[in-house]
């Protein structure tokens, strides 16, 4: 710690910080633009001017930029000196010269950092009387709207997009007061993190195009703290509603999970909530296949009647449903009749992951923590597509070793441009072994592409090279060179990290990754092991236990199951269609609870309208084993309710049937001591600040008395929320609520997302009161897991056939986001990617249409001939509705379609 004097008052601040960050952390208001807590300082905008004094006798001092001024003990500065204030005002005056002052029609208005800073600086009246420079705007794709005239040239966008996310198709053009931020030509912004520009841009240059399609003023939104449901990382987000439709997603800072950023799937995948395919009322299918809507009461009565009459009811849970919903289903049907709702193969993979996390003694870091590792091996995952935000954190981690050079030159870590000048384009020890080129390869020091069986062998070989006690494996020369390079780099590191996952459905890969981490741990390294699992609550569901879906089908085959309840699960995405069809043929009554119409719902007898994450509260467990609570954003006007609330109607246990979310959680944790931690994931519904609830609506919310006046002139009572301490109103506690209960970030004078500074204990650090979520699994020092020995042999297809593997896509592979219109614009056309050698052998060319046999059905695909695909392998996009239920790998032939 250092003592600094701010306007002659001493303060204790963090050593090695810069003055801006230190002052903001102390709660001072200083205007700034180019500085960003994750992007650090470059000193471009000159907005954070303060006066720095030589010593206590220096009365004049000199203007310095707080963001570029290192904190040193006994430093004396002034924020309030007239000279500094005047400079900051003048700087805003300059910045505003060319700004269009179109706040009344600007999407950013009311949540604009530029507005806040302008007001804060005290600049009111314009002296510039000449023409403004203007720019043309660009089409940037379905996610972002571009309005260059509003730009104040803070350079944050390029610093995020190019420097931080390492995107290649964006930049700064031209010079002097004509600088332009955009693409070389109009077109879709390719980077998977482009949406963060909405929050990184301090004004309205980059705004959310999806919000624009159903715009509402930011202060008129009802918000809730929630968890992104589109992959297993569980990024914290804020979801916002007005008039019954979800309007946008913002990042919700969590110092241990997603920090300041989320991916584009997470930000723009929400539109499925507003989909026309939403089920809004209970539905019943008669034996003739006719559907009819039902009143909730009648539907409940009929289903309750069926349940009473049924001899054997099974429940099929879901990794995309909350712990509470799965638990209630399990309570309803009994543990023996509860099935996890994923294929045996996938269930086994996640069980293995959980087993390793619980027993290996190797730490599973949080997502944000992965940034701190100094050597990384990614084994068999295209992380940008299977766990997108991990790609962003690994990109930062890959710079840790090169950054040491800057440290040696005594360059502060926050001196961003200077650090980059030292490290230049150097890549740290990030190694990627995957069956094909991944989107993260450009950040890696070396990549190896091979058959997944070979990748598993490679992993085993790395472990063996690190620790001779680890099982040995024969590898070819090309593999061995890579193995040695990786093993040496991991051994040389202080904190090596191994990343693997379930995406290739390959158990040996998971074991190989564990072996490497175990070998490193034996060496005394602070090794980390980070597994990616398929869905938002895959790990939570696995912790609840239950058999897999194959077992459910076997049970059904045996006969005697006369009713099944399917919870938020499209079974056709889990197993081949003919097997799922058979399930529906064998079970006379199937009740489906889901949010969107899908093939499973179409086969059911009853469909109940389940809430999406936006209409539900509950708990999910991410891949780290972190339990996180998500909260309902709004009460829908139709019959939609949380799945667990529907299921409460059917359980025989009246206490469980009548309780609120907390009651469900108490019962759940009583039954599952391993999950006890979820009680601590967030405060219970009784929590109050004083006597006040936390309002979901900002106090600036408008129109409450008028918004329903066309229906009823008297203002209706706001809905109650018995499940959380959040209220559906604007009244309540205005201040900093506990972090898991923060529905929006706001602080007096700070209307934009930059106000998150006020919610943190230190800048870019932990949120006040601790980061949300509770880790359920910690590595044990006593763990004694032995090495896995199940080395695979390479299984190649018979001659003339190809071994088909899944290729994941951030846009398209995940079920719900793929139902969102803006995401759909980015989903690639179905393809099959094959090697150059196989293309020659099969006599197919790039762009040719081919047919492929898949479990009895024929699909048509366009050929991609790629030199990154190993011979004998082919990749098809994973999760596409027509073939989402297949199990990889499988051998098949390609048949060219000759027109």
């Amino acid at each position, binding site marked *: 710690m250092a003592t600094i004097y701010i306007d002659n008052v001493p303060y204790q601040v963090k050593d090695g910080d810069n003055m801006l960050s230190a002052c903001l952390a102390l709660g001072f208001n200083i205007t700034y633009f180019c500085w960003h807590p994750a992007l650090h300082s*470059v*000193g*471009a*905008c*000159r*907005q954070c*001017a303060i006066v720095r004094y030589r010593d206590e006798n220096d009365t004049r001092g*000199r*203007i*310095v930029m707080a963001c*570029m001024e290192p904190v040193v003990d006994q430093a004396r500065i002034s924020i309030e000196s007239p000279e500094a204030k005047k*400079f900051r005002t*003048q*700087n805003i005056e*300059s*910045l505003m*010269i*060319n700004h269009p002052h179109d706040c009344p029609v600007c999407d950013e208005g009311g949540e604009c950092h530029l507005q806040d800073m302008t007001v804060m600086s005290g600049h009111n009246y314009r*002296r*510039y009387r*000449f023409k403004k420079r203007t720019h043309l705007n660009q089409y940037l794709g379905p996610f972002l709207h571009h309005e260059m005239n509003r730009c*104040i*040239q803070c*350079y944050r966008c390029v610093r995020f997009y190019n420097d931080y996310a390492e995107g290649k198709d964006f930049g*700064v053009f*031209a*010079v*002097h*007061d*004509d*600088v332009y931020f955009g693409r070389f030509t109009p077109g879709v912004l390719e980077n998977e993190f482009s949406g963060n520009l909405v929050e990184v841009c301090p004004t309205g240059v980059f705004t959310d195009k999806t919000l624009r399609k159903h715009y509402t003023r930011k202060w008129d939104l009802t918000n809730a703290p929630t968890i992104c449901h589109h992959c297993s990382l569980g990024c914290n987000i804020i979801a916002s509603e007005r008039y019954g439709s979800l309007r946008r997603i913002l990042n919700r800072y969590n110092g241990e999970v997603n920090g300041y950023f989320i991916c584009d799937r997470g930000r723009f995948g929400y539109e499925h909530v507003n989909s026309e395919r939403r089920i809004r009322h209970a539905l019943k299918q008669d034996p003739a296949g006719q559907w009819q809507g039902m009143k909730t009461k009648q539907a409940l009565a009929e289903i309750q009647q069926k349940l009473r009459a049924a001899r054997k009811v099974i429940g099929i849970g879901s990794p995309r449903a909350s712990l509470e919903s799965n638990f209630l289903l399990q309570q309803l049907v009994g543990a023996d009749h509860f099935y996890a709702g994923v294929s045996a193969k996938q269930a086994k993979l996640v069980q293995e992951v959980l087993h390793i996390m619980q027993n290996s003694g190797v730490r599973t870091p949080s997502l944000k923590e992965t940034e701190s590792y100094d050597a990384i091996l990614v084994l068999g995952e295209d992380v940008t597509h299977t766990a997108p935000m991990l790609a962003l954190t690994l990109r930062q981690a890959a710079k840790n070793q090169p950054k040491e*050079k*800057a440290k040696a*030159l005594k*360059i502060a870590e926050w*001196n961003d*441009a*200077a650090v980059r*000048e*030292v*490290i*230049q384009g150097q890549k740290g020890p990030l190694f990627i072994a995957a069956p094909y080129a991944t989107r993260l390869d450009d950040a890696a020091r070396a990549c190896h592409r091979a058959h997944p069986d070979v990748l598993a062998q490679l992993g085993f070989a790395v472990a063996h090279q690190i620790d001779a006690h680890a099982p040995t494996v024969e590898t070819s020369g090309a593999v061995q060179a890579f193995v040695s390079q990786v093993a040496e780099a991991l051994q040389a590191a202080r904190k090596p990290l191994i990343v693997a996952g379930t995406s290739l459905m390959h158990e040996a890969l998971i074991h190989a990754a564990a072996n490497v981490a175990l070998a490193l741990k034996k060496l005394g390294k602070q090794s980390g092991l980070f597994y990616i699992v398929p869905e938002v609550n895959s790990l939570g569901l696995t912790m609840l236990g239950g058999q897999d879906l194959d077992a459910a089908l076997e049970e059904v085959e045996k006969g005697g199951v006369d009713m099944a309840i399917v919870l938020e699960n499209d079974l056709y995405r889990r197993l081949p269609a003919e097997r799922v069809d058979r399930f529906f043929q064998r079970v006379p009554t199937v009740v489906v609870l889901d949010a969107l119409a899908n093939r499973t719902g179409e086969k059911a007898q009853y469909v109940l309208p389940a809430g999406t994450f936006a209409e539900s509260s509950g708990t999910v467990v991410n891949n780290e084993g972190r339990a996180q609570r998500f909260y309902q954003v709004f009460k829908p006007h139709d019959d939609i309710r949380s799945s667990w609330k529907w299921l409460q109607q059917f359980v025989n246990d009246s206490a469980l049937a009548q309780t609120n979310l907390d009651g469900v959680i108490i019962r759940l944790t009583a039954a599952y001591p391993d999950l006890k931690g979820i009680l601590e994931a967030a405060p219970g519904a009784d929590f109050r600040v004083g006597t006040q609830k936390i309002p979901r609506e900002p106090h600036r919310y408008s129109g409450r008395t008028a918004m329903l006046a066309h229906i009823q002139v008297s203002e209706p009572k706001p809905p109650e929320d018995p499940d959380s301490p959040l209220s559906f109103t604007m009244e309540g506690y205005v201040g900093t609520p506990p972090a898991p209960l923060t529905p929006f970030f706001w602080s007096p004078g700070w209307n934009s997302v930059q106000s998150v500074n006020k919610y943190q204990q230190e800048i870019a650090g932990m949120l006040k009161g601790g980061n949300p979520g509770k880790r359920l699994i910690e590595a044990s020092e006593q763990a004694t897991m032995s090495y896995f020995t199940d080395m695979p042999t390479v299984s190649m297809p018979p001659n003339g056939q190809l071994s088909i593997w899944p290729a994941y896509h951030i846009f398209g592979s995940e079920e719900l986001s793929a139902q969102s219109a803006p995401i759909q614009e980015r989903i690639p056309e179905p393809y099959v990617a094959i090697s150059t050698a196989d293309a020659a052998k099969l006599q197919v060319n790039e762009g040719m249409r081919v047919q492929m046999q898949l479990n009895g059905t024929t699909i048509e695909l366009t050929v991609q001939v790629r030199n990154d695909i190993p011979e004998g392998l082919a990749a098809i996009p994973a999760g596409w509705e027509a073939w989402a239920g297949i199990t990889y790998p499988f051998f098949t032939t390609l048949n060219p379609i000759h027109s």
Partner: protein
Amino acid sequence: MERPLTEHIPLDGSWLRLKDYERVGGYQGLREALKLTPKEVIDRVKDAGLRGRGGAGFATGLKWSLVPTVDQIPQPRYLIANGDEMEPGTFKDRLLLEGNPHQLIEGMIIASYAIQADYSYVFLRWGYQFAEKALQEAIHEAYQAGYLGKNILGSGFSHELSVHISAGRYICGEETALINALEGKRANPRTKPPFPVVSGFFGRPTVVNNIETLSNVPHILSKGVSWYKSLSKCEDGGTKLYGVSGKVKKPGLWELPLGTSFREILEEYAGGMLDGYQFRGALPGGGSTDFITAEHIDVAMDYNSVPKVGSRMGTGTVIVLDDKTCVVGMVLNLEHFFAQESCGWCTPCREGLPWTEKLLLAIEEGRGRMEDLKIFDDLTRYMAPGHTFCALAPGAMEPLQSALKHFREDFERHIHEHRCPWK
């Protein structure tokens, strides 16, 4: 009077070939340097009192001594000769580049030896195409003669030198922007610290020296420190290339003892004002220096004296303002240049300079207002040294703030008469 830098430049517009350069003592400085340790070379240059001729006047030997030793930071490391001469009114490096490229090359090899640089570059202004040709041929000659390449003159020291042609921006004269440009990046300046001597070209230790500065180096080594110091009329050593442009009888460029008086340069070498023109003031060191007026005419043109009369030595190339030229128009022309050449990185420069230019244009065209002068006062203070990211905008403010100080009535006349009184 000795003119070591320019005396051998052929008068026919050709350049001094290697054999002619060697005949007049060329590469003797290098031979001398290679007998010394790098530290001894640095000490000689320090003792000689050579100050950077690019404008800032930073002590050259001191700059070299700030480069970490090879033990501290291993090679590679770089020397860059800044030949991006774009300061308005400045044409001194051009003469040295076009007339005596070997002198520069020799200076660069010595400097590289002193800092143990294995590579050096001449960063050359795009427009200097004759210089490029001369340099390329001279470098070829130097390689052929063994002054460049592996194991130079059997010393064990190896060095590679090449020329980079700038795409042409004023900001590339700023050493860190130059480094970015040389790396193929936007020519934005870098933050200091870290200084280029520690983290420069591709993050390696780098020294950037002006062409004229480096051209002095061979002579210090070959003829000695005391000789070099004796060339000067002030405490710093050597000669200086002084130039004069404007309405004078003989505009030109002369190598004179450092510290020669402004009056002597103007009256004796430039021949005084053209008939019918009165001297009103001058920018003593290029476009980004403050005006001096007749009362300062006896100032010695050196790095310590010019600041005492409120300006800077800069590049030592004088632009003279006469009584028949509108000062507002002159400053407008300069500010147009500076606004156009801003890299667009920091706010005061990017936004403040175009505003300044537009205000000057309004005043020049008779659309000015008295409150504009207040805005000028604000803008010049706003863009003061230390307030901006680099020295471009503060430099741009120097002619304006001094014009407002010395010639305020001219601005006021424009405003009151709603026209330019000189038109």
